[in-house]
């Protein structure tokens, strides 16, 4: 049992797109930064790096990793953008370590030795992943105590429900997970790779096909020639990697998406949306673009993945288009895999969480589609927190409250227990 009086736990929710970290008990995470990192192979640019004055890079074997919003915002020659997470599962632990390091040492300025750690994990995390996380936390960071809590459970609890169906639409994926009395019903979880990033790509490609060129922030300079009048000068950096260019374009495209996109009330089709008014958006380089039907078409991909096929340039994702199901189908499929007795309750407490779920009108559209497809007797209710911070960070907020409860302190998996029982004990402590 971890028995410290002063509990200043740290809560980390490492998502596929953003990492949220902060002190337990607070209302919102203190540090929110991309979960992708920049990496430069050391062989190629050894001399350059020694002269470069930067506090962030950390040497990891043969590559140098750059983590955090500001480090990622700075263009470097040969820097590749890498992600630690693929399909919701961690594939590269070095990157995870560098992200944790960044969160503890540079954002929160804490010594991990002194703080219990609550980590949010995806609902379908494997045993090996959990044990590996425990091992790292206790061996490398010497954390005094650890707890792993499932995303879906935290979201469900934070809305006051022990039983609910959590629709978590994040950056890299959308996961529908039924929670019953605080347990995730693993067999009924359904997942699709359609998340915010794919929508961003769809929007970007669609705009590109219409002649819009999104110029990454680093590729030009703007000068004020006369007050109020700007001149844009192109800059050329031939050593920029393709992945970094794409990363920068996505940052812009994702902002466009968040500003203008809206889930359509009915399934999207080209004819009825051809005459809708255009919305203007000013790109960082000063050009103003007009966005029309894409405002509605992009979010509709969540409901109808086969729309991807109609977007030029998205050929790489055709597999997803044909295999993934739309959001309402995922919800119904997941509920139908659950016990008959709890189906009614699940239908009436569908919770939206995650960044993509904050899309305008998404809640209304999902509710409408589900009403049409659900059994007659079911009372469908889709809920989302009215507060956009709570909606976006529901997982983190749930973790933050839990870890700060006085009564929770007996639940931690402590370092001494780890030393006595080993990392597999995590399965007992945090089922």
């Amino acid at each position, binding site marked *: 049992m971890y028995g410290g009086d002063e509990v200043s736990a740290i809560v980390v929710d490492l998502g596929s797109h953003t990492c949220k970290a902060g002190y337990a008990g607070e209302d919102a995470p203190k540090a929110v930064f991309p979960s992708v990192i920049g990496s430069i192979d050391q062989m190629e640019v050894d001399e350059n790096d020694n002269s470069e004055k930067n506090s962030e890079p950390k040497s990891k074997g043969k590559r140098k990793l750059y983590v955090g919003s500001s480090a990622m915002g700075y263009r470097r020659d040969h820097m590749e953008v890498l992600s630690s997470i693929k399909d919701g599962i961690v594939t590269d632990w070095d990157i995870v370590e560098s992200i944790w390091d960044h969160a503890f040492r540079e954002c929160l300025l804490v010594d991990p030795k002194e703080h219990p750690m609550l980590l949010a994990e995806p609902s379908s995390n494997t045993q090996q992943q959990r044990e590996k996380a425990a091992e790292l936390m206790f061996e490398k960071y010497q954390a005094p105590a650890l707890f792993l809590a499932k995303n879906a459970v935290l979201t469900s609890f*934070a809305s006051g*429900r022990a039983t609910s169906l959590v629709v978590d639409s994040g950056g890299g994926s959308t996961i529908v997970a039924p929670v019953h*009395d605080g347990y995730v019903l693993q067999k009924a979880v359904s997942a699709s790779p359609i998340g915010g990033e794919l929508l961003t790509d769809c929007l970007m490609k669609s705009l590109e096909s219409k002649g819009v060129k999104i110029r990454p922030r680093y590729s030009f300079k703007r000068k004020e020639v006369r007050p109020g009048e700007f001149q844009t000068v192109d800059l050329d950096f031939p050593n920029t990697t393709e992945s970094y260019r794409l990363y920068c374009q996505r940052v812009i495209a994702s902002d466009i998406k968040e500003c203008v996109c809206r889930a359509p009330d009915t399934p999207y089709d080209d004819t009825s949306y051809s005459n809708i008014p255009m919305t203007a958006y000013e790109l960082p380089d000063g050009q103003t673009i007009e966005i029309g039907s894409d405002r509605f078409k992009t979010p509709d991909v969540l409901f109808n993945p086969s729309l991807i096929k109609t977007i030029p340039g998205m050929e790489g994702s055709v597999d997803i288009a044909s295999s993934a199901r739309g959001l309402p189908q995922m919800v119904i499929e997941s509920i139908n895999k659950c016990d008959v007795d709890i189906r009614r309750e699940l239908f009436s407490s569908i919770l939206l969480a995650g960044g993509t779920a904050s899309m305008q009108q998404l809640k209304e559209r999902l509710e409408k589609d589900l009403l049409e497809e659900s059994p007659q007797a079911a009372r469908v209710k889709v809920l989302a927190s009215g507060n956009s911070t709570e909606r976006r960070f529901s997982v983190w907020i749930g973790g933050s409250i839990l870890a700060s409860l006085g009564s929770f302190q007996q*639940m931690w998996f402590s370092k001494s227990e780890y030393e006595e029982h080993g990392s597999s004990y995590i399965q007992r402590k945090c089922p």
Partner: protein
Amino acid sequence: MANAASGMAVDDECKLKFLELKSKRNYRFITFKIEQQQVIVDKIGSPDENYEDFTNSLPRDECRYAVFDFDFITDENCQKSKIFFIAWAPDTAKVRAKMVYASSKDRFKRELDGIQVELQATDPSEMSFDIVKSRAL
């Protein structure tokens, strides 16, 4: 124990009062609240109070747990009763309270042996008399 349970303690009074409701039937309902790291008895309703008195006893924007002894007559004209457990977490309650009540529910419910129907409600319509009746049958 559920994943991410809060570890909240349960005051013995809760179990005793519940036993009285169950065996002696001298209460219509009991509401419980969480205070100072434990679940304690909040309000008690006498047997002659009805469902409306019970719903009125729940605060509008705070969370509570409650048990209600529901008497009804089946289609076969048979007098029956069922004990309901209700987790009341209104949408307007604070996130912190919702988190605390939801993560402590499983443990607390296990302490009360003899609950027949469980309901979670986030607004009054989810625990209307009709719903309670349909769940009892």
